[in-house]
């Protein structure tokens, strides 16, 4: 009984977490995108220090023809989904060791959710 309660509790919390994840606020995320904007554009074909993020969601990592990716990212076989982006943005070097993005990571889960919601909106 106790275990069941714990299990339910865990399920509820997990759902709440993914709900929060799904409910990231794209408007707040647009503001948070300032963290990325010195290197990344949301215009297709406009690569800066980092590759364009236009249509990033659903794309396989390291597949834009006109951007030079790190070998690490090419080997990663990641497809950018809400979940893989969340993991990557939280700690890029942990997610894909030796990738070339010089960014320490976004530690706040709520901010990550907002940012991803914005990227999702802009990917449509």
């Amino acid at each position: 009984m106790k275990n069941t309660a714990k299990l339910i509790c865990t399920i509820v919390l997990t759902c709440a977490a993914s709900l929060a994840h799904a409910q990231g606020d794209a408007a707040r995320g647009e503001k948070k995108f300032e963290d990325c904007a010195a290197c990344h554009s949301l215009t297709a074909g406009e690569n800066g220090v980092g590759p364009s993020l236009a249509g990033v969601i659903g794309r396989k990592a390291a597949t834009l023809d006109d951007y030079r990716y790190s070998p690490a990212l090419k080997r990663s076989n990641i497809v950018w989904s809400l979940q893989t982006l969340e993991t990557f943005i939280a700690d890029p070097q942990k997610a894909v060791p030796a990738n070339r993005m010089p960014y320490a990571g976004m530690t706040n889960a709520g901010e990550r959710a907002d940012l991803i919601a914005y990227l999702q909106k802009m990917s449509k």
Partner: protein
Amino acid sequence: MATRLPPVDIVIVGMGWTGGILAKELAQTGLKIVALERGAPRSTQNDFSVPLIRDELRYSQRHDLMMDVSADTYTIRNKPSETALPMRRLGSFLPGEGVGGAGAHWNGVTWRWPDHELRIRTKYEERYGKNFVPADMPLQDWGISGPEIEPYYDKFEYTAGVSGKAGNIKGQIQKEGNPFEDPRARDYPLPPLASNLASQMFAKTAKELGYHPYVRPTANASQPYTNPDGMKIGQCQYCGFCERFGCEANAKGSPHITVIPVALRNPNVELRTYTWVTKVLKDSTGKKATGVAYVNVLTGEEMEQPADLVILSAYGLSNVHLMLLSGIGKPYDPETQTGVIGKNYAYQGGANVTLFFEGKSFNPFIATGGWGTSIDDFHTNWNFDRGPHGFVGGAYISVGGSNGRPITYRPVPPGTPQWGSDWKRATAKWYHGALTIAASAAVMPNRYNYLDLDRTYTNRFGQPLMRMTFDYKENEHKLGRHSADLVNSIARSMNPASVIPASARVEPWTVVPYQSTHNTGGTIMGTNPRNSALNKYLQSWDCHNLFVVGANVFPHNASYNPTGPVGALAYWTADAIKRYVKNPGPMVQA
């Protein structure tokens, strides 16, 4: 035979901070502008990306982004009686080369030099009398005042994305800022950077001693930032590869990510890289520049670029060299003290103490270029009485920590062997436990510190090298002793396990090791064509359609790093040139 190119309205020589600011601002006039840069094109994505840029040997030790001394260098001596010899390897200072210039690989420290520096002669005479300034010190007012240049400091700080805390907004002293600074209209565009343990310990001790510590302003962005031109600057990642490196994260205010791309959006602005300007051309009267001669360094082709207006905006020393090579203005002669080109060359002084603490971990590998905590009680503080000390100028004192890189950063206490297993053990032990308190001291002009053309040595194009005659004089020695005593006494108050004490420099200046890239003077601004090369708008007294921008216009070197006024004066001159092109002629009557 040089190829004569179609004429343009404005030619800009050198594409770093000053050339970039002038190109961006003057693009608005619609005039046809050609910018010539002797070095390579540079961008963050192609030149500064990780892991490439984190190569300490290539960039820090072998100076990959700096001036190539096999093509052109300086001959060096301490006094006129010596024979100058060419500097074959960079050391004491590191001029930039390539698009972005030294603005690509600077640390970011951005100061506002106060009114009492700009009106230095007047201020010292008012306070200490006519005899306080020694006869061999050609100390001069700049021709501008603090309030005149304030809006231009603001423009530069907002362009470069400076992080800091104002100390005086419109006369109101601000908590946590530098209380001695001149009044400013508003705060810095970004809040201060995170501070490190070493800076916090210094701030605490300084406060206990009655000083006024504040976080040093610097163009390393504490937050993501969009500047007034819409250019995006990223947040600093504290990677510790700042000075001598380009920033991989676009987080250091640099011309190649701000003013230069803005300028190049305009169809009337063209940038030509690998173009080495050898001379400013003049008409038969010698009173008007007609353009420049340059060499395409990739092909060896010689070109002439006619222009109605010439702007020299290369590294300060290169600007002086070009003026001497072009025969514009009378070269300075230290014996007769006549002539103006090459006059008032100055540099930077100072004294450092290194402290070692048991059980502290300063994590020096987490670092950014200009961060740190400073006190200005002995520099910007005009109430600091120089009278008893008998010197002009002052020193600001800081604890920073721009890097903990493996080749450069190996602090060990006195008495440690210089090699072998004991040295290895000591470097491992003290890597985390050392901090340095640094005094950055002013250097005042002296009649025997100057720049002219060498009689013996030539550069790649057969032109005479520029000769630098420089040494620290009595004023610098007095200031050095004062600074050393001061930092040693602050160090004692911090109770370290051991120290390498600061000592005032007594030996002559040499080109090794690295000291600072704060070379100033040579074509100075001023109020009078008899003792300055340029008027207050940085317009040549001799050729009214020639403007010269950079630290070479400073009549003396204050304690502060030079880039703040270099950027501000570039904006100031851009405004002047916008007026000039409508009504060409001398903007100040001689």
